[in-house]
């Protein structure tokens, strides 16, 4: 029998359609069907100036806007050969880790809800609200932050911002204990997740899996540690790895990542350097409002950047960062003008979704929901 699941299904986290060929309760074949959220962002980018692409990158993956901002900004900075001041780099790391916490909290809440543990959702969204308030404080927006710009960050954070982050960072580890109390030792949770949707390390690598989905299968690889960017080499953190390769292993990896992320946030707070938050490149970085109103030169640069953009030397780069879901990559080709010739986003979810048939074929229908939840997909990023 052919069964159609989605595109409007509560457990598909967006609009994913899955075509199931079943024999009784057992899955014979499973085929994901995507494209319902395709908005042609890559094409749109080609018609924008480099700085105008930043708000588009937020909208690819609405759960980790800062990660996308960061990846795009790093790629363009690499094309330009720009040096970013230390304070901007540390701010980026700090906010990027808060984004990871935000994203993992949404994942944990919805994943647990799919499997039937409704309470966890309320707990997770309680802390997520705190993170979103921090984002609002720093960028004026809760979700579509566009805070990282080419050459630095948009604004100096408000005065009490670091105290608020520290307050959150001190509170958060005990909250993770609360989630774990609800799930980790829970016999129902273990029965629904242990040994379910198992994937071997070889299969995971061959199918292009990355992030916690790869590390849940015992492959010890994290771009933050192994190919550091934006000053991650200055931070000490463990990369959680689980060996089993099942839903529970991926759950374990992500929950441990929550703890590691908050550790990175603490380190960033302790070691936050002083200095400027934008690179010294007047042709690329918008001048301060104050300077723009008092200095003719700054006004001219401002006018030129807004009306003409800035030319980027011809060339191409591929920049990858470790997003909460895996390897998020931007491939940008410049032809020497003010608009990118080609922008391509390597979506971690698109590759991770290819694991679904390997995970589910020959298993039960009820496990499909657990499997989809465990690879943590965001359809906005898959379809772009």
């Amino acid at each position, binding site marked *: 029998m052919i069964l159609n699941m989605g595109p409007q299904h509560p457990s598909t986290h967006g609009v994913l359609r899955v075509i199931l060929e079943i024999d009784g309760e057992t899955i014979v074949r499973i085929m994901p069907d995507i*494209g319902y959220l395709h908005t042609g962002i890559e094409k749109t980018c080609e*018609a924008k100036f480099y700085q105008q692409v930043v708000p588009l990158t937020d909208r690819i993956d609405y759960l980790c806007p800062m990660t996308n901002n960061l990846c795009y900004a790093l790629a363009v900075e*690499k094309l*330009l050969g720009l040096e970013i001041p230390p304070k901007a780099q540390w701010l980026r790391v700090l906010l990027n880790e808060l984004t990871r916490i935000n994203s993992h909290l949404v994942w944990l809440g919805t994943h647990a809800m799919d499997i039937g543990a409704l309470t966890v959702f309320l707990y997770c969204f309680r802390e997520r609200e705190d993170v979103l308030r921090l984002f609002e404080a720093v960028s004026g927006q809760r979700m579509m932050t566009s805070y990282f710009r080419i050459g630095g960050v948009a604004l100096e954070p408000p005065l009490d911002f670091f105290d608020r982050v520290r307050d959150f960072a001190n509170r958060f580890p005990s909250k993770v204990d609360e989630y774990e109390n609800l799930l980790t030792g829970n016999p129902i949770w273990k029965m629904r997740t242990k040994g379910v949707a198992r994937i071997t390390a070889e299969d995971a690598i*061959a199918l292009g899996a990355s992030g916690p989905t790869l590390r849940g299968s015992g492959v010890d690889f994290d771009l933050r540690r192994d190919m550091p960017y934006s000053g991650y080499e200055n931070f000490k953190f463990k990369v959680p790895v689980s060996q089993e390769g099942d839903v529970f292993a991926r759950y374990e990896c992500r929950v441990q990542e929550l703890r590691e992320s908050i550790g990175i946030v603490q380190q960033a707070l302790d070691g936050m350097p002083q200095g400027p938050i934008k690179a010294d490149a007047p042709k690329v970085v918008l001048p301060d409002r104050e300077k723009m109103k008092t200095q003719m030169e700054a006004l001219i640069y401002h006018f030129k950047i807004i009306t003409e953009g800035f030319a980027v030397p011809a060339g191409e780069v*591929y920049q990858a960062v470790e997003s909460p879901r895996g390897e998020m990559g931007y491939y940008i080709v410049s032809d020497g003008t003010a608009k990118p*010739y080609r922008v391509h986003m390597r979506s971690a979810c698109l590759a991770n979704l*290819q694991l679904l048939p390997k995970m589910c074929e020959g298993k039960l229908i009820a496990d499909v929901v657990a499997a989809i939840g465990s690879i943590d997909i965001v359809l906005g990023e898959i379809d772009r």
Partner: protein
Amino acid sequence: MLTPAITDLEQLKDHPAVARLRSWNLAAVEGAKFDRDELSIYVERSSLREACALLRDDANCPFNFLSDVTCVDWHPAEPRFEIVYQLLSIPKKERVRLKVRLGSDSPAVESVTSVWPAANFFEREVFDLFGIRFTGHPYLRRIQMPENWEGHPLRKDYPVEGYR
């Protein structure tokens, strides 16, 4: 600051990935470029799949992970399309980029799904948005656009607003 790109194959021939490919088949490597700390190798079209398999199984630096496959349209220049493969070596933490140039006349290249199954969705996306055929692909259907869509939206001669 930016250092100028190296495009001379002679200077890059000692790089492990280039050397490996050249020792296998001298004609397979059409050129190479080292720019902004990233290495790109232009591979001859008919030897692409074998070159990929060779780099994946290389004993010193196995590029066992396919990060990405995409395409760049250089319309109206010829050869018009450049298919771009981003390879990653998880054990050695190295990246290399392979490129294949294709003319505008029924562009096709051999699929690498038999080397890395990960290429499946990536190649379908390139097929869908650029109209490149991948021979030997197990399921070459549109993936992002509807089945009955006309044209390939990411081609440069396709208007940003679409056809109305």
